[in-house]
């Protein structure tokens, strides 16, 4: 059987605050297959962004494993891990570029530095075209409206042609119609074989996902009683009686 594109197993993460330890994720297991959209619902400070950063390889868990395409990300050399991060995982950065003065086109080309300039240009334009924001190409980030920023951020992640797209709160600040367009786009990306992991405090953004989990108290909750071998989530929190 083919390994899932992304597999988190028993991932645990806590933050230290002086003498205290704040558990954020407890024994979280989750997988995303190629072409699948997986959604994680969580309220503010539920640990969504931490989960996504770990899934995207931007942060390491305290315990547990993250496998990308069957390979343990924690065991990769730094060089290999950087390659996976740069080329295979698309992290959607809604905060935009470090400088708000950077034009959309230049921001899109950044991950393609070192490649053929013509190809970088072609891919950047193609990504903007696909997301319907080609007209924004020469605009600096600061001039963009909220809806445009979401689309441009998605284009910036897609320009690398990643195999996994990791998206944090893609529909914040959007109206109902814009929200549906963004969700449709994410599904269109998945239809091309990309695995899509979305976390959001808005259930509407996850409404059409293939699988939905909710994150609270550090544990993931999924639909009831999946057979153990198909189980996407391990639930563990204080007060839960052992089965």
């Amino acid at each position, binding site marked *: 059987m083919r390994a899932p594109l992304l597999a988190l197993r028993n991932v645990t993460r806590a933050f230290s605050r002086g003498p205290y330890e704040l558990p954020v994720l407890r024994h979280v297991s989750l997988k995303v297959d190629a072409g699948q959209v997986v959604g994680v619902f969580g309220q503010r400070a539920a640990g969504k962004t931490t989960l996504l950063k770990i899934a995207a390889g931007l942060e390491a868990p305290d315990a547990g494993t993250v496998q990308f395409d069957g390979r343990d990300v924690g065991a990769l050399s730094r060089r290999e891990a950087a390659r996976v991060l740069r080329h295979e995982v698309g992290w959607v950065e809604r905060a935009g570029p470090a400088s708000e003065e950077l034009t959309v086109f230049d921001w899109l080309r950044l991950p393609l530095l070192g490649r053929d300039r013509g190809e970088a240009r072609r891919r950047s334009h193609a990504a903007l075209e696909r997301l319907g924001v080609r007209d924004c190409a020469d605009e600096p980030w600061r001039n963009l409206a909220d809806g445009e920023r979401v689309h441009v951020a998605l284009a910036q992640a897609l320009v690398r042609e990643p195999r996994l797209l990791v998206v944090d709160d893609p529909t914040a600040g959007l109206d109902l119609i814009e929200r*549906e367009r963004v969700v449709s786009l994410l599904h269109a990306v998945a239809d091309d074989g990309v695995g899509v992991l979305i976390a959001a405090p808005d*259930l509407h953004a996850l409404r059409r996902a293939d699988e939905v989990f909710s994150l609270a*108290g550090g544990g993931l*909750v*999924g639909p009831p009683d999946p057979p153990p071998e198909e189980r996407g989530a391990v639930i563990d929190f204080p*007060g839960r009686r052992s089965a």
Partner: protein
Amino acid sequence: MKHVVLGLLREQRGYGYDLQQRLDRRFGFLRLSETAVYKLLNRLEDDGLIAQDGRRPVTQRRAAPPVLYAITERGTREFERWMGSPCSRAGSREELHVKIKLSEPTDLPQLIEMTLRDEQECIAELAALPQAHLDQLADAQGPWSEVAALLVDDAHVARLQVTIEWLQRARAVMQRRLAAGTGPRRLVR
């Protein structure tokens, strides 16, 4: 419904009228009429779940003296069985609300489990909602029928989101309470 009355009697014995008042105050949303309460009391007594525990002395001659009811051992066992049983699917949230109101700290582990099960059901409900067809939504002048379908879908999802958020909040509060109750006691000087 009978378990609500059993729960109230477990807290404290009561006369029919007094029980009806307590029910109204705490479980007004169940909309139980006075007649329904008395019928329920008779049935519970017939089933041996509650028993008469004396009568209030009356001053008026002709009026029947009010009966004081108390829960029996069998009634307590039945209440505890219900408290620990999963909420029935239909109207389960209302049943969960009733259980929370009648609960004691010892019931927390099973209530936590119930909020979890309910949250799982919400996620299953989300998956089971019929998908609105939104093929032409990208066009601002697309058919109104699609936008209308989306609005209704939006309402269903919003309801599920509010429920999940409440279940998570409720669980967090119960877990904190449970952890505080079982942890080492703080020394007070």
